[in-house]
């Protein structure tokens, strides 16, 4: 009897298993900023933060509160196309398509090939198709109506960034997983027939790809994180030729009208630089456009044309939650919003 009471007691102790259903809050999504926070690799803690600009509040658990589940592991890209928002969740091997109005999931597209993941990285759009670089050496074509993968275009190894210009898709082949023998090419895909027109050499370990207001394509060749520095390269989208490799350090580019905001984080000195690059004159106008003294780790930069504000994404030490820091278009600091872990991409709502 003593034993049975003991067991009953222990059962009672554990009967109160956590099952506290949190109410799902639907926030009206206007006048705010949607922030993709990458989280950390293998921790399933990628998240969306919603900054409500009307009352300056931040919901750091926005995706979960709208969908009742987590976003997944390592969110790499966030872009809007029409009424939908596409989130590339790299290590979960999904493309999460959510409704722009309320953040509710429309479809979670699996990005797997049998049991192995394709490791999607970034997304770009053209007509009724979305193009997703996949680390297994392909660009997947997703139909934006049916939200299914309709085709796979073979490119180089471990494709990273991509952008559309002049009816062509420019895809950087990083070859990052073959380190130290990385790739150094950009695949140029004809969007009329999804075939590779050309593969041009731009420099070691190409990553981000950005198109300027004139249709020129810029790529960051990240080098080897050592003796070969990270450089910005300009490609002529008409001729498919590399026109110039710039001599300044660069790790990211953000379009601001006829300018690029060029960010660079120096890992060895742990300092950041933000340059202003004129895309019309194709030259640097200011090497120290924004003072980065208030930034710990510059992890991304974006410009909101509607409000004419610049946002710097601060990843702090990567293991602490980050900040979205707001600046005027002249580079004057205004305020910060405390968001999730490793903020990397923004979508602006008016």
């Amino acid at each position, binding site marked *: 009897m003593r034993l049975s009471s003991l067991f009953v007691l222990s059962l009672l102790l554990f009967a109160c298993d956590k099952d506290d259903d949190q109410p799902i809050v639907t926030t009206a999504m206007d006048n705010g900023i949607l922030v993709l926070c990458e989280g950390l690799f*293998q921790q399933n803690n990628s998240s969306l933060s919603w900054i409500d600009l009307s009352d300056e509040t931040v919901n750091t658990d926005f995706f*979960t509160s709208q969908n009742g589940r*987590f976003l997944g592991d390592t969110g790499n890209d966030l872009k809007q196309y029409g009424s939908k928002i596409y989130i590339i969740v790299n290590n979960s091997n999904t493309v999460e398509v959510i409704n722009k109005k309320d953040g509710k999931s429309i479809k979670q597209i699996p990005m797997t090939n049998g049991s*192995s993941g394709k490791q999607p990285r970034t997304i770009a759009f053209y007509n009724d198709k979305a193009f997703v670089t996949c680390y*297994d050496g392909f660009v997947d074509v997703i139909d934006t109506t049916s939200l299914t993968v309709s085709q796979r275009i073979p490119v180089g190894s471990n494709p990273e960034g991509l952008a559309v210009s002049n009816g062509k898709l420019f895809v950087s082949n990083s070859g*990052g997983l*073959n380190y130290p023998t990385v790739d150094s090419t950009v695949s140029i895909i004809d969007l009329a027939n999804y075939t590779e027109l050309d593969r041009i050499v731009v420099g070691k370990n190409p990553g981000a790809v950005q198109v300027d207001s004139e249709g020129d394509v810029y790529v960051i060749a990240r080098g080897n994180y050592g003796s070969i520095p990270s450089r910005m390269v300009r490609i002529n989208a008409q001729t498919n030729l590399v026109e110039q490799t710039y001599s300044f350090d660069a790790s990211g580019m953000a379009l601001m009208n006829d300018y690029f905001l060029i960010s660079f984080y120096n890992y060895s000195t742990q300092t950041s630089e933000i340059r202003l690059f004129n895309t019309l004159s194709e030259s640097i106008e200011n090497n120290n456009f924004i003072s980065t003294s208030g930034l710990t780790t510059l992890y991304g930069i974006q410009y909101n044309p509607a409000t004419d504000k610049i946002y710097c994404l601060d990843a702090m030490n990567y293991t602490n939650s980050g900040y979205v820091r707001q600046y005027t278009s002249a580079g004057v600091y205004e305020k910060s919003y405390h968001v999730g872990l490793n903020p990397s991409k923004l979508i602006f709502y008016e």
Partner: protein
Amino acid sequence: MKFTLILLALMLSFLSFAQLTERELQEVRVRDSLRNNAEKVQALRRSAILELQGEDVGQLMQKFAGVAIRSYGGLGGLKTISVRSLGSNHSSIVVDGFTLVNNQTGQINLGQLQTESLESIQLITGGQKNYLVPISAQVSGSSLLIETFEASFSEHKHQVRFSSKAGSFGQYDNYLSYKFGRERLYCSVFGKYRIANGTYPYSFRNGTSVYSGERLNNFYQDAMGGANLGFKTKKGGLVQLAYRKEFVDQELPGAVILYSQNGFQTLQTINDRVQLSYLKHLKRWSLRAFSAYSAMSMVYTDSSYLNSAGFLQSDYSNSIGQLGLNARFRLKERLYLFGGIEEQLSMLVSTVAGIDYAKRAHSFGVLGFSYYHPIFTLTGQFSGQIVVEENANQTRIPLYKMNPFIQVESKEIGQKVKGQLNLFYRNSFRMPSFSELYYNSIGNADLKPEKADQISLGKTLTVRNPKTQFVNRASVYYNQVRDKIVAIPTKNLFVWSMQNVGKVAIVGFEESAEWCYYLSQNWSTCLVLNYTFQKVSDITDRHAPTFQHQIAYIPKHSGNADLTIKRKNTGLRISNFASSLRYSLNENIPANQVDGYWLTDAAVFTKLPIRNHDIRLQFTVKNCLNTSYAIVRYYVMPGRSFLISLNYALK
């Protein structure tokens, strides 16, 4: 509920059909080296080890106060311990008088140390009671001393130990050992094989929904065998020789990744180890000389790696030689000097860039004294270490370090209730591992050693009479770890590197009590309780968001409550472990919370002693309440599981 009733009925039936034998509370097989400190240090002995049916030493260590276990789950999976929150590399693991060394990772996987042959496990946090343990263990932050059946003398001519287990998730485990013994000689051989498919179901909360699946890529098998020889020479010397070989073939399931299958990695390990020791007690001297050589080769594969080859394979080969000399000398009646030297030479060769070749020569020396005053014992030691190493690219600047240790122990006072106090200060360090120094782009060859300081005050109370046996240990301590080696991203989120950036302050309190009571001729009961409080704060940078936050994965509160009830030779043990919530990262915010958990195991066992034969049957239900939990976030642990074990011993 239905299950609980069945279990209960089963246990009660076992109790009522109990067999008859002499009164026995705890199988006290206190070995020579244990006898001196049977109650002053935390220890588990064979009877308790059998009752717990831990799959490995890692699981058993959860029963110790002051120990935080880091387990990635699965049979044979990586398990390490952090004693008093210093970190796993600060603890030495000593098996049968030899320190296990792995300079590649700096960690010994306790998930691959078997329990079948264990006679005892002791956790030493203060000074060593046995001054003949290797110097490398004497200078580390703490040490785990393990003694096995195979390497001990026995009064019996033939001894056999056999165990066979079958458990959930396709687990089978067989061990056989034979020992021939004479007064001056023992000679033993053993072999072990275990296998598990490791495919268990799991479910956990995913937001407000539940995510469930099956643990995949979790197959494990290992086989090991060895031989031991020991003899006493005519002049009183003791020679011990041992050889063992291990094969481990395991799949690495990795963390559960939401919405995607993970775990395409495998690891094959082959280990060879030979060791020799000579011990002699003279009138005023005790001397021990030892040497060991071990060779370990590992092959890691990842079939999901998206490089051009579509496959990643890394081969590692470690060779380690150890040579040591320990001595203790009675200078005066109350004053003993002790000391020794040890040399560890290790070499790693691998196919991984940066770590393709590394060599280290680590020399240890200790000089100390123990003064036995009638009311206290004062022990002091000074150690010196020299580390010389190189890899393919560079030779590191030789490292010279001196570290003190001092301890005062009061004499045991009292008659019915005996009490003792203990105060120590230890300064120690741990070397960065080869992986931390050289691995690919992650390694940082400029790393400094990680330093630790410990101040601890403890008390022991014991009560022993024919009806009751009671031991109570309590300690408070303050530790600091400086130049803590942590991984931080240095090139991008995927390229991390090791840095000496952290400083950690640890305030801890441990309390443990073992209480055994003989109710009658036939009935006895034992209750073991322990509780650990640890406030482990990041004090690296006053302005950082994590300043004074609890360090990742260290619970503030944890404890055990184990109850054993025995009637003659049959008994029931209910074993509980609880841990408060932890954080997966150093920032103590809700998003990083890893839920606390409570585990209950229940076992019924019966022994059938027939003359010299001991047959022991046990049925264990692990995680009775089917608690869904993870020690490391998303490394989901199994729910309720069953284990039937048969142990046979020929005395």
